[in-house]
């Protein structure tokens, strides 16, 4: 099974399975064209625990819990669980914050971009183009020596804390915890936060995705990065399988509507769909994984990924509290389409985020690297090899 999942056929089958599950989650109650959206689910979870008070987006998403716990189980079974951390955590946190902001200006993470495409929302093509450009810029930085440095082994318990936190959130959700009349948890009564499959379905789907994604190293950003960097189509084959499988389920279930304007929970503001995903693409690539991959890595014990996930959740909260998010398209009384998109603060935030990523890309380099000479051999290593204690 291990060998199969590492193969090309394995990632294609896994991608297809994930695509089917995502489309099914939409049929089971998740929002339209949002069977899985790591950015939106981070936003909903942030709202449920009160980090923002935007009432339509408040619900702890069990899918995220499943991603982490499924990945933990798969990693443990394959002896790949390794508690590790320490690679520029503050940077990774801020990359998570800006990734969430960029995604909430586009109104989706790369996973949702694929599902919006599979639902007929062609604004997703603009978003995916922006994602590719962001990744391309980041790849350029990597080629010039960009690095956030090495992580190091940490005590096992450190790697188990993110799964523990997700279990806590699941428990709060299952028991509909209420800390008081005006306290958390908050549950949306209308809007995307009110649209969700039953907890058991969401959790089960998340667990299966977590297992498959951990074993196959599934990464929607890496799929684009690897084609640009080394002409490797392995990850992309899985991503294409996801989109096609979701498309087929959508068409068969009548959930496919081709269009650009007034698509579900989306806007047709081309420029800011593009720029929002340029920012997200930069952030995901510089941080080493798409938002789904960061949750899967967190399940494997990667504390740097867990920090990025924290940044996603806080960034989503900031995006709502500071009015950075985009509004979806709307229909006026006379039937005209009112173009959605970000307000002025959202635009500033996206541009500031891109500037931050460019600054990081140009300046984050390992400490003065040295090649160690030893008899007959030379060493070419990553950062800090000779400066490690």
């Amino acid at each position, binding site marked *: 099974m291990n060998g199969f999942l590492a193969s090309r056929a394995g990632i294609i089958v896994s991608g297809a399975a994930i695509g089917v599950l995502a489309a099914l989650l939409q049929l089971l109650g998740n929002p339209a064209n949002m069977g899985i959206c790591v950015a939106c689910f981070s936003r909903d979870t942030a709202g449920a625990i009160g980090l923002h008070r935007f009432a339509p987006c408040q619900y702890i998403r069990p899918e995220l819990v499943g991603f982490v716990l499924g990945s933990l189980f798969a990693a443990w079974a394959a002896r790949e669980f390794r508690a590790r951390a320490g*690679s520029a955590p503050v940077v990774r946190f801020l990359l998570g914050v800006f990734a969430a902001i960029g995604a909430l200006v586009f109104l989706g993470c790369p996973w949702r971009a694929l599902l919006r495409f599979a639902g007929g929302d062609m604004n997703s093509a603009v978003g995916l183009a922006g994602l590719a450009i962001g990744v391309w810029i980041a790849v350029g930085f990597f080629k010039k020596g960009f690095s956030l440095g090495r992580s*190091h082994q940490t005590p096992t318990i450190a790697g188990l804390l993110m799964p523990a936190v997700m279990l806590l959130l699941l428990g709060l959700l299952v028991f509909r915890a209420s800390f008081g009349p005006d306290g958390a948890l908050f549950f949306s009564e209308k809007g995307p936060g009110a649209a969700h499959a039953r907890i058991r379905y969401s959790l089960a789907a998340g667990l299966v995705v977590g297992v498959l994604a951990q074993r196959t190293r599934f990464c929607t950003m890496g799929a684009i990065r690897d084609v640009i960097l080394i002409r490797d189509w392995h990850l992309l084959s899985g991503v294409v399988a996801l989109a096609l499988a979701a498309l087929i389920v959508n068409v068969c279930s009548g959930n496919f509507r081709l269009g650009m304007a007034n698509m579900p929970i989306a806007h047709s503001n081309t420029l800011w769909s593009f720029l929002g995903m340029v920012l997200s693409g930069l952030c995901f690539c510089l941080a080493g994984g798409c938002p789904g991959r960061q949750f899967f890595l967190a399940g494997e014990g990667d504390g740097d990924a867990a920090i990025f996930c924290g940044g996603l959740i806080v960034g989503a909260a900031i995006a709502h509290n500071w009015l950075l998010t985009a509004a979806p398209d709307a229909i006026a009384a006379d039937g005209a389409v009112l173009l959605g998109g970000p307000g002025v603060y959202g635009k500033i935030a996206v541009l500031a985020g891109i500037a931050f990523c460019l600054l990081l890309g140009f300046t984050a380099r390992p400490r003065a690297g040295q090649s160690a000479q030893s008899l007959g051999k030379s060493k070419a290593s990553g950062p800090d090899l000779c400066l490690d204690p």
Partner: protein
Amino acid sequence: MEEVEVDARGLSCPEPVILAKKAIDDPATRIVRVTVNTGAGRDNVSRMARSQGCAVDIRPLGAGDFLLTIRKDS
């Protein structure tokens, strides 16, 4: 140099692949020894090396580390 060692432990994607590929691309290099400490790193580097026409030998070193010995053909 004929043989190059790359220590890619603790590095995020895609750094292990970039460092390994840089070593492989050097025409003077015949053998590249890459150390990684994640399964993903092992899979990604070996897939890249094989796609470059190299032979890859993978040896677990214990504590989750892997040594990939990459030999260039011709």
